[in-house]
Each structure stands twice: as structure tokens, then as C-alpha cells.
């Protein structure tokens, strides 16, 4: 951990609000980018990031430095996302996901950027498959760490990553 960051964390744990704000500001972009990948919904990702900041303030005294501060924030954000999913009906969740993907596609077309079929396939996966895939194959976390983040057994993470990649391969296969 960076010395400067360690000092900020220590100050934040002592109740220094400016140190905490600085710490959260430094990790904000990273957190939102992660949440966009996890949710595939930029608006929801921004909302979850705001909630994560507030939750981090409430729980900062419990941060024990065993994981990186960014990983700790990711864990809080992921759990808030999972909680928000539990509160919504499956149909509403699906509609929101579809709307968001359409909006992203439109943004890509408007900005002259190329849209990837992989994003469509990833957006079509259930959250329980998408989250471990993003954490494992994009952020490079170990299965054990992901299990801790998602609060599920390590074996479940392995099978979800495996099944998720299999589904993606099937979706992207030219024979289908």
C-alpha cells in the first residue's frame, strides 16, 4: 500500500473527514468503472458508487488493511448491488438491463465507437455469472478473494466462472 494512502486511511479511521474524502475521491473513478462493468448500467453504477462512499464512511473503522482499499470498496459496492437486485423483481431488472444496453449502444453509435457483441453477451448473462467473471478475468482476483467478496463458497465461484465463460463462448460462437 502507498505510504500516503496508509496515512490517509489512518487519519480517516480517526475521524478525519477530509482525509476520508480525499481517499474516496482517489478511488471514485476506479469504483464507478468497476460498477459499470458489473452492472452494465452506468446510471445505476453512479448511484451505487455514491451509496458505497457513504457505507465506506460508516464502516471505515472496520477496515483492517488485509485487502487493498480499492478491493474493500469493490466489496462494499458489489454487496450493495446484490442487495438492490434482491429488492427488484426479475422482470424489472431485465427491462432496466435492456434499456441500459440500448442506451450504451446508441452512445457507441453516436460517438462513432464500435460496439462489441461480447458486451451484448455479457449483458445477457445473469448477475451471478457476470460478477465473478468480471472479478476473475478482468480484475484478476483469486477465486478465494471473489468468494469473500460475494459471500459464497469458493467452489461456487469456480463453477460460475466456468459456466459463465462457457455461455459467452456459446453466444459468440459463429455456428449459432
Amino acid at each position: 500500500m502507498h505510504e500516503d494512502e496508509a496515512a490517509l486511511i489512518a487519519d480517516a479511521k480517526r475521524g478525519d473527514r477530509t482525509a476520508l474524502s480525499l481517499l474516496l475521491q482517489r478511488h471514485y473513478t476506479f469504483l464507478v468503472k468497476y460498477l459499470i462493468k458489473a452492472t452494465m448500467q452506468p446510471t445505476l453504477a453512479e448511484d451505487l458508487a455514491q451509496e458505497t462512499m457513504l457505507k465506506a464512511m460508516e464502516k471505515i473503522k472496520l477496515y483492517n488493511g488485509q485487502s487493498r482499499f480499492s478491493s474493500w470498496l469493490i466489496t462494499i459496492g458489489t454487496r450493495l448491488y446484490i442487495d438492490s437486485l434482491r429488492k427488484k423483481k426479475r422482470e424489472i431488472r431485465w427491462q432496466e438491463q435492456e434499456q441500459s444496453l440500448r442506451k450504451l449502444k446508441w452512445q457507441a453509435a453516436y460517438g462513432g465507437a464500435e460496439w462489441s457483441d461480447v458486451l451484448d453477451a455479457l449483458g445477457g448473462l445473469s448477475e451471478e455469472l457476470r460478477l465473478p467473471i468480471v472479478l476473475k478475468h478482468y480484475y484478476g482476483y483469486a477465486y478465494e478473494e471473489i468468494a469473500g467478496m460475494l459471500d459464497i463458497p469458493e467452489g461456487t465461484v469456480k463453477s460460475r466462472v466456468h459456466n459463465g465463460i462457457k455461455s459467452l463462448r456459446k453466444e459468440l460462437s459463429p455456428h449459432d
Partner: protein
Amino acid sequence: MTDRRSTDPHREIRDIAEEEVRPEPADAGDAAEEAETVRLLRGALDRLDTLAPVFEPELHRLEARLEEHAAFLRRRLIRDLALFLTVASIVLSGLAAVILKVPAVFLLLQAAALAAAPVFIIGFYRKKVNSR
């Protein structure tokens, strides 16, 4: 991709992960296909970063938001404590009145609670077993 990696605090972890997806000789064809899917996935997620730009909040705004939330938490704590103390004092004064004025009712309530406890416990475990 270059942008993200240069500012990504997970850079080292990510590099290890890249090594992990190399094809295994045992099932080389399958593993190669999987590695290709992962490569495409990373590329697509990198592209997603450019599609949805993120704006870092200003420090003073963030600080004000945290301050506001801290005030909300303080207010909620005071409200919860007040509610707890009110309910506790009502229950305790009611109990004291019953014990002092009509002890028979108090003893009856104690006996009823003692008898109801095993019924509730058995019912709770039965429900748990059924739901599995």
C-alpha cells in the same frame, strides 16, 4: 487499455490473471478457445470504459455529502435511542405496576410464556426443516 492499466491499482493482480488463462496442454483446443473468449472480454470491457465516461466529484462536494450523511446518522441514532428508552420505560413501568398491584397476573403471564416457549421452538425448527 493503456489508459486503464496505467492508473489501475490492480495492475499486478491482473498480470497474474493473464498468465493463468494460457492454454493448458491437456485440453489445448478448449483452453485456447477459452483464452480467446477472455481476451475478447477484456477488450470489450476496456471499450466500455470509453463509452461511459466517469467524472470525479470535487473534494468539497464529497466532504459536504459525507458531513450531511454523518448528521443523518447522528439524528437516526438519537431517534432510535429515544424510541428504545421510551418503549423500555413503558414496558418496565407496566411490569412494575402488575407485580406490585396484581402479582397473580404476573405469575400467570410467566407460566404462559414458559409453556409457549417449547411450542414456538418446535414450530420454528419444523418450518426450517420443511423449507430445506
